[in-house]
């Protein structure tokens, strides 16, 4: 399999997943008019000639985690950061889709900042449920909440793309899934009002905004309302974390994608008794941890999403 990223033939998702398994490396997706097309299996060098905006997604660093599934989560975060520093093309910024820490401890936030700041890139965060374990979400908001609304949601623009960071991990209800809440949904409706439908939209939040597996809480109760506000836009990309594995789905003009963790993998839905940290062979761990590279090509309204494992 070559790095033939100019061979833009369409292949089925099933085929992609087979390829991914076989090659153990990243897949480049392009999205044009809501229809994803594979650009083929890609190697480390494929992102060398982007045009337009490139940013990175990092997720679920769980700083402080030290259980058998990965006794040194800080170490694998540092490995991810070193890979980012070595990228041939410097991304414009990083989004972190939550679970920065494992237990919301100040020392864990400190360690995460110390390592992630070594990228020397602007980092835009949204919290995971592990980051808001103190009662008033004070620790997270003191560090990352400047200029945000409510418990930490916000939007910004870069290269003509509108980015929206949402919080769906606060005030969760018994028996429920992730939760955005009425205040945030009203803000979202207002934030999108008046924007051109041709504006590419990137939404990022911790828990998937599509229902991956409700039996394990992998979904967001009121995400349908958010997606209703987004459906008039021609290009919507939703980036999530939380489930510590790559999953993707396309629904209309909306492409959903979840990232790997930098700390530990979790099992495929229903493949284990619970979604707890999954222990894999030591020599396989770095093939299931990693970061995600996203490129927006100006004028083509496409986002190319490449998952980059730490190894393989």
């Amino acid at each position, binding site marked *: 399999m070559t790095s033939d990223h100019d061979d833009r033939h369409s292949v089925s998702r099933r085929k992609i997943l087979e390829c991914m398994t076989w090659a153990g490396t990243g897949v480049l997706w392009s999205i044009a008019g809501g229809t994803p097309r594979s650009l083929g299996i890609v190697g480390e060098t494929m992102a060398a000639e982007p045009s337009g905006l490139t940013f990175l997604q990092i997720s679920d660093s769980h700083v402080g985690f030290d259980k058998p*599934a990965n006794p040194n989560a800080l170490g694998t975060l540092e490995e991810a950061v070193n890979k980012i520093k070595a990228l041939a093309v410097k991304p414009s910024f990083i989004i972190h889709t939550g679970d920065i820490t494992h237990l919301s401890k100040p020392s864990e936030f400190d360690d995460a900042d110390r390592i992630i700041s070594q990228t020397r890139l602007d980092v835009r965060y949204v919290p995971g449920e592990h980051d808001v374990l103190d009662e008033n979400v004070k620790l997270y908001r003191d560090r990352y909440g400047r200029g945000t609304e409510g418990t930490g949601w916000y939007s910004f623009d870069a290269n003509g793309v509108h980015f929206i960071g949402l919080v769906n991990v606060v005030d*969760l209800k*018994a028996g*429920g899934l992730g939760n955005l809440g009425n205040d945030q949904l009203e803000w979202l409706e207002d934030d999108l009002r008046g924007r051109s439908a041709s504006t590419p939209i990137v939404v990022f939040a911790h828990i998937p905004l599509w229902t991956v597996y409700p039996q394990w809480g992998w979904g967001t109760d009121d995400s349908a309302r958010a997606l209703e506000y987004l459906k008039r836009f021609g290009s919507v990309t939703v980036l999530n974390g939380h489930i510590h594995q790559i999953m993707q789905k396309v629904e209309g003009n909306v492409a959903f994608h979840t990232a790997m963790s930098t700390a530990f993998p979790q099992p495929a839905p229903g493949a284990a008794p*619970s979604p*707890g*940290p999954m222990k894999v062979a030591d020599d396989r761990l770095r093939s299931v941890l990693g970061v995600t590279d996203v490129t927006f090509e100006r004028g083509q309204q496409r986002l190319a999403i490449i998952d980059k494992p730490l190894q393989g």
Partner: protein
Amino acid sequence: MAHRLAHSAWIATALAVAVLAVVGSFPAASNQAAGTEVQIDQFTFAPQQVTVKAGTTVTWINDDDAPHTIASSTKLFKSKPLDTKDKFSFTFTTPGTYEYFCSLHPHMTGAVVVKATTGSSAANKVR
């Protein structure tokens, strides 16, 4: 109620430590202790429902590699995040059904049913 809330806050900060020494030595299997310990294993509370007499202290023990909390659905009590092997205890003094969940993983739910110690007429309502 104010007293109870203050009580639970105190428990959250102090008893987590005290319980390690006291409750930790009781075997979970004995008749006397049955229903007073709830294991958290594979993202489930086991048993999911326990029935105890009024005045019983229920202790939750996290056996998972992921942290969990014990959060009353009516905000009567809430533990700090329990890391692996951490414990949380709450003493149930009033008959009723007390539903709770894990605030990190809200699909995890459980209940404590508290019965009167004598033939009291207290209603078995959800608290």
